[in-house]
């Protein structure tokens, strides 16, 4: 018949390596017995004393961990930051690549749009879970290995701060280019039914794009989305970052991407009459639609990446704004977003 003490001691010892058990058992039993004697001589009943002593010693698992000098955490403060960095940078690189690759494979394999989305999502989630697991396992091993052979710390030096983010003038160039391209594309889109090199039997031009787009007004919706997308880029350029605006911009971008994807999936973009009249194979038309779906996927990824880059690059301390005198003036200037100091 095992007493409470026997069960407690067994619980502690079972978690410790064999060589240490005998010595520890003798010491632990002696300590418990001494403590019980102490309480009994103070007037407590033997059973109550044993209970109280074991309760004060606490969870046998914790006691065993303390005896073994093992870390009672998975990844400690020394390595946690590195672990976070590795996980986020791996995720930022690997997950988009996986998503695009799987989406491409599905699109080339002629899958249904729903299937494409489902498989891509599934593959991305599986990859993410694997990344988390193996990264965590690796760092947990490093943590325990480092206990025996402490790694020399990597000293942080101010060199790691890196260069200034690219100046705003560069991005203005991008913005103007984007506006020109967008205007050109919209013009082409709207004029295409009238100015087409391909003529039908009656001599009227056959537009590249499906008349369905005009019948349903989808073309105007698409033009609106392009203009909204352009607008968001201007917003991003001129206004300081804030969370509601950033989320709204992200939603607008994603809406554009979804529209592209849906347009491709609907096979209603390229005029089916155009292909035969221009001497194109049906396959070419299908590829055109697939291209739209692929572009949709890529836009999703770039939208998220842009949103994240904006978040990271948001100006917390605008350059040169905190001057000792004129603090009030600078604060006012900062609030309208056009920080002259920054340029």
């Amino acid at each position, binding site marked *: 018949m095992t007493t409470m003490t026997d069960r407690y001691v067994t619980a502690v010892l079972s978690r410790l390596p064999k060589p240490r058990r005998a010595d520890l058992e003798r*010491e632990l039993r002696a300590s418990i017995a001494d403590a019980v004697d*102490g309480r009994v001589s103070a007037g407590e009943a033997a059973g109550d004393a044993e209970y109280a002593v074991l309760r*004060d010693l606490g969870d046998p698992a914790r*006691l065993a961990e303390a005896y073994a*000098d093992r870390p009672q955490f998975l990844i400690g403060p020394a390595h946690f930051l590195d672990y976070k960095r590795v996980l986020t940078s791996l995720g930022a690189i690997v997950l988009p690549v996986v998503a695009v690759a799987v989406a491409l494979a599905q699109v080339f394999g002629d899958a249904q749009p729903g299937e494409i989305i489902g498989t891509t999502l599934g593959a991305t989630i599986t990859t993410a879970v694997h990344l988390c697991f193996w990264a965590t396992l690796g760092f947990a091993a490093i943590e325990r290995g480092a206990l025996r052979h402490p790694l020399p710390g990597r000293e942080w030096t101010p060199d790691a701060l890196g260069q200034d983010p690219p100046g705003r003038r560069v991005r203005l160039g991008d913005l103007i280019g984007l506006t020109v391209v967008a205007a050109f594309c919209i013009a082409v889109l709207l004029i295409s039914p009238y100015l087409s090199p391909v003529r039908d039997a009656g001599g009227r031009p056959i537009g590249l794009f499906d008349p369905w787009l005009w019948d349903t007004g989808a073309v105007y919706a698409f033009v609106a989305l392009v203009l909204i997308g352009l607008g968001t880029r201007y917003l991003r350029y001129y206004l300081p970052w804030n969370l509601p605006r950033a989320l709204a911009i992200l939603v607008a971008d994603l809406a554009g991407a979804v529209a592209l994807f849906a347009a491709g999936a609907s096979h209603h973009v390229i005029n089916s009459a155009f292909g035969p009249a221009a001497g194109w194979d049906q396959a070419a038309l299908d590829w055109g639609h697939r291209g739209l779906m692929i572009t949709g996927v890529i836009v999703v990824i770039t939208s998220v990446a842009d949103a994240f880059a904006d978040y990271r690059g948001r100006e917390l301390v605008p350059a040169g704004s905190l001057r000792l005198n004129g603090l009030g003036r600078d604060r006012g200037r900062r609030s309208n977003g056009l920080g002259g100091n920054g340029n």
Partner: protein
Amino acid sequence: MPEDELIAGHLQELRRGTVVLACLLILRRPNYGYALLESLEHSGFAVDANTLYPLLRRLEKQGLLTSDWNTEEARPRKFYRTSAEGEAMAEALTSDWDSLDAAFRALKGKAS
């Protein structure tokens, strides 16, 4: 965080190192687990049993204590005693403690 938790947390931080020095000083005369616990308590260093016992083993592993099984009595007990390195460590810790004490007095003196 309620007041007591805050105080308890800081007190724990303050006392964390003192138990080691107290053990090294008290164990100049050999003693064993439970009696040491009582001795520390009487000297004003209240420690939990589940903190002290692993601590004694850790100090022994670090060479600051030596141990011996005493089989004279009916109940064999493991006696710990401060080693030579432990004595040196105790001196180093004590002098550091003294300088801290002087520094605190100076600080309090300046403040009041």
